[in-house]
């Protein structure tokens, strides 16, 4: 249990920060800067976790563990630790949450203490979901994500925020209650809630309870009705976190809980899930192509991307898993970056409607370069890290049937169509009616929180194997998988 304190720190540091900010009488700026400092320290601790993690096939799957009995007689414990994918996703979450917090400091969110406390609380919850090794603990963190999110959307959102919050809340609540049912049944029937100790299960019903929570939160078609509303009404950076980070909690749940711990139900249900993912991939891409506003394009592209990631996961082989994890990291960075850019464009023009934008490249080289770079990576231009992820995913799913890869290939073309449409609508042609000449280029502080995300993506493009090669050898850790891993 070496270095378990690192994992604890990653959970508790933002929580402590959140409590302090909520209670201490800080000014707006002080609250923001403190939150920013806490999240930067979080990144540093993640760096520590990364260096202490040993990517080696012959040592335990879960590392940096810590375990304390919680309700001993019920078999519940505080058990945390990192799997390889969780480590990368935590890093992605730490980096993107920091960027989102910096964005919020820059645009001066009202009620700063409540806002920044919520953001830090969300960080804790997300990291908790990634590291939890106890089902009940997993559930606690899972639900804990919901509270700050509904405050963040409900208080700081756009004019339709109430409906958006309500919808998001009811939808995800319905899913998580089914998951809670599964967890309680699973835990009580086994006498332990521990994920590692419990081993695999063969119950279809319990599997489906988990899947219900994940398909809603991800979301997977047709459980996405909350998505366009929530992504349009949330503050830009919160929409980014929702689509970039929170959705990954669901995707990770698919991988670590649904697939790895329910191999037989996964085998039985993977075709219907792949079908839904395929529909979502095409459906999301087509709607993104015709969406009338910036957020619509990014929101539906996110639906498509989650479909693609689900493809990789339910390919149930190494290429699919590793590609999906890489793509989760990519999509987190891309989505948060794009939503922040959307927010900055909206701040300058007062609108996200594509037909009122245009011509912003002229005289705004920084905005043009950053949006172009992110957009190009988002459409997975060959050579980019997103391409590497998609390539691996489609390689993986090909072994399940060539038809899946054909769907993926069609989606690649559609992605080019909707992303280029977005880029051109903002940057190119003549000036849109909402674009004033004095709408400024990206300023230095704005670049300071967007460029690190772009830099991460460029480094990953040069070396995507950093993630795929330092990830997990699930076949060793989960022998039950071998039965159907092609």
């Amino acid at each position, binding site marked *: 249990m070496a270095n378990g304190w690192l994992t604890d720190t990653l959970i508790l540091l933002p929580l402590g920060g959140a409590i302090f900010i909520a209670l201490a009488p800080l000014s707006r700026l002080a609250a923001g800067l403190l939150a920013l400092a806490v999240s930067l320290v979080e990144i540093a601790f993640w760096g520590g976790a990364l260096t202490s993690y040993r990517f080696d096939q012959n040592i335990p799957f879960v590392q940096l563990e810590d375990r304390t009995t919680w309700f001993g007689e019920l078999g519940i414990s505080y058990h945390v630790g990192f799997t390889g994918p969780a480590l990368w996703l935590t890093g992605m979450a730490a980096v993107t949450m920091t960027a989102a917090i910096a964005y919020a400091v820059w645009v001066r969110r009202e009620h700063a203490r409540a806002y920044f406390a919520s953001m830090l609380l969300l960080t804790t919850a997300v990291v908790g979901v990634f590291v939890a090794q106890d089902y009940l603990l997993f559930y606690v963190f899972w639900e804990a994500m919901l509270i700050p999110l*509904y405050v963040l959307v*409900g208080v700081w959102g756009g004019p339709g925020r*109430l409906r958006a919050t*309500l*919808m998001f*809340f*009811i939808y995800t*609540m*319905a899913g998580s*209650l089914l998951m*809670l*049912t599964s967890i*309680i*049944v699973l835990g009580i*029937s086994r006498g332990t809630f521990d994920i590692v100790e419990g081993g695999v299960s063969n*119950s279809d*019903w319990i599997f489906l309870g988990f899947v219900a929570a994940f398909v809603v939160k991800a979301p997977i078609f*047709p459980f*996405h*009705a*909350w998505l*366009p*509303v929530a992504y349009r009404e949330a503050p830009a950076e919160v929409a980014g976190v929702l689509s970039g980070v929170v959705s990954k909690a669901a995707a990770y749940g698919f991988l670590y809980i649904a697939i790895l711990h329910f191999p037989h139900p996964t085998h039985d249900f993977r075709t219907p899930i792949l079908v839904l993912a395929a529909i979502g991939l095409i*459906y999301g891409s*087509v*709607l993104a*192509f*015709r969406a009338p506003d910036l957020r619509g394009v990014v929101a539906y592209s996110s639906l498509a991307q989650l479909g693609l990631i689900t493809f990789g996961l339910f390919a149930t082989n*190494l290429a699919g*898993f*590793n*590609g999906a994890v890489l793509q989760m990291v990519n999509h987190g960075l891309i989505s948060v970056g794009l939503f922040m850019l959307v927010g900055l464009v909206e701040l300058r023009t007062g609108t996200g409607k594509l037909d009122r934008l245009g*011509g912003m*490249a002229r005289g705004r080289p920084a905005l043009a*370069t950053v949006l172009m770079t992110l957009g*190009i990576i988002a459409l997975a231009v*060959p*050579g980019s890290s997103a391409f590497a992820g998609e*390539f*691996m995913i489609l*390689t*993986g799913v*090909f072994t399940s049937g*060539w038809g899946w*890869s054909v769907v993926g*290939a069609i989606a*690649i*073309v*559609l992605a*080019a*169509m909707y992303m*280029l*449409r977005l880029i051109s609508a903002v*940057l*190119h*042609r003549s000036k849109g009616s909402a674009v004033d000449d004095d709408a400024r280029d990206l300023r230095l502080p704005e670049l300071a929180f967007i460029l690190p995300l772009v830099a991460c993506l460029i480094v990953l493009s040069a*070396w*995507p*194997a950093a993630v795929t*090669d330092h990830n997990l050898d699930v076949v060793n850790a989960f022998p039950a998988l071998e039965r159907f891993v092609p």
Partner: protein
Amino acid sequence: MTEITTSWICLFSPLVAVIVIALGGNRFSRRAAGVIATGSVALSFAAAVVAFATMLTRAPGNRSHLSTAWTWLSAGNLHFGLSVLVDPLSVFMMLVVSGVGGLIVLYSIGYMHGDDEERRYFAYMAMFVFSMLLLVQGGNLILLLSGWGLVGLSSYLLIGFWHERPAAIAAAKKAFVMNAIGDATFALALFLLIAKTGTLDYGLAFSKAHGLSQTVLILIALGLLGGAVAKSAQLPLHTWLPDAMEGPTPVSALIHAATMVTAGVYLIARTAPIFQLASVVQDTAAALGAVTLVMAGLIALVQTDIKRVIAYSTMSQIGYMFLGVGLGAYASGMFHLLTHAFFKALLFLAAGVVIHALAGEQDIRKMGGLRGLMPKTYAVFLVGALSLAGIPPFSGFFSKDPIIAATLERGGAFGYVMFVLAIGGTFLTGLYTFRLVFRVFHGDRDRFVDETFDTHHGEGPLVMLLPVGVLAIGATLAGWLQVPGGWHGVSSWLQPVAAPILETTNTQEAIASIVSVVLGLAGAGIAWWIYIARRRPAPAAVPAFERKFWFDELYDALFHRPAVTTAKVLYALVEGPLVGGSMAGIAEAVRGLGTGTGRLQTGLVRTYALALAASLAVLAVVFLAVR
């Protein structure tokens, strides 16, 4: 330095220039950005020359090396290295790309002088060269695909360089999407290859390919061919190329001569072992090339934009290269690629000088009689035109004829049909090329010319004329690298990588040469008869040629409009009801709970409590049931 070190330098030098220009921003003058870009490509060329010279000292069997920097992507047993392959084929392409590319970038310093965004332009140009070098140097198919995609990206950026022109942006998007279709089929071929062989390394994949079934091989080859026709603007994915003329003229030269469109030819030569195992697909490549070369020649006859005439001539000439590599005459295809790079870059850059002098005008109906005003440009344009038309002793003659001879060697119904199409193409080439020469440089000077010709500027600065001159020398002399019945510089160099599957005889070469020269001269003669001697009025344009055989309309009806309609239908029938319905349902449910206060928090907390209670009830039921 070994050829491996120099290859890495060759590859990354332009990328370094991109980064330096991008990070430098306003700290560099515009001129400096041009110099950095040119210098980096020149360094690439120097590195390629050193690599070539080093390899010459080695025995032909010992000229292929793979160097891996690190594992780029991996999962389980799959490992794709970031590696370069240094062999005769890649060095051949490195020389063409960096050599001709470097001249074009140099020329751009003069051509783009005064544009607001020169730095962005030169960063993109260097990016383009880097992408193409990655494509030809990459040591496995995934790197080839990466370069492939980055070339598409660079072309998008450069075609749409003047981003305030709607036509330029539309053309750029069209090029990218057309290429993305090719990328997608290419990627599918690779998925299949991985599934069947477990590797994307050239050597290993080719040796394992022998054990694959014919169906699998055909599918892989078809996927690769899909990528090749999209990138090389062959039927049926060719429609982006003429529109790509919206970019600055040096960009057109770069796309058409040194980079991009030649990639498909390279791909077929590089993956020749797979195509040879799927001979149906290889024949398809040849047939597509032959049909494209005739169709593009017909369309070129009626174009009125100087750059579009040259653009269609590119499509046509690439058709010859496809025909060559499709027949298995790889060295002939690559040789034509080399000479074409010289004379096509020459024609575009010379056309650029004309456009530059006429304040951006590209319509040949407003030109005429420029010979007197621009003697140097006229001379070099004539060299390019003679070379394009395949008139000896210019280079096109030497490289085109072996391809035509190969159709004879192939023989049979297929071979003779290809032969007829190919020699038909030579006639069309002579006709449209000299129509262009006569309309632009001969005849009476249009009043427009007198009004706009920039006498002060003249034929442009030295930085533009120098590269044009070098290219003219290349277009004149490059043909002598390989003379039928004499020596075979290109064939023997490429022999270890792409051994031809057919050998032409001297008789066939002679027949091909005589027929094609006669027909080329006949085409030129008819052009003279119509446009100079004016014995006949110029014939009315055929609608099918003017409408480019309705491909744009077809694709619009097949793809774009269905995509738009599908999206509308999905919004109306699925997304609207789904979102609206759940919204209404939830509103109903909340009202039903009797919250009535309208205050969010109260409502939610109550809902939450209710949901928790309900969940416990569900839980109890499930628990009992599972028990």
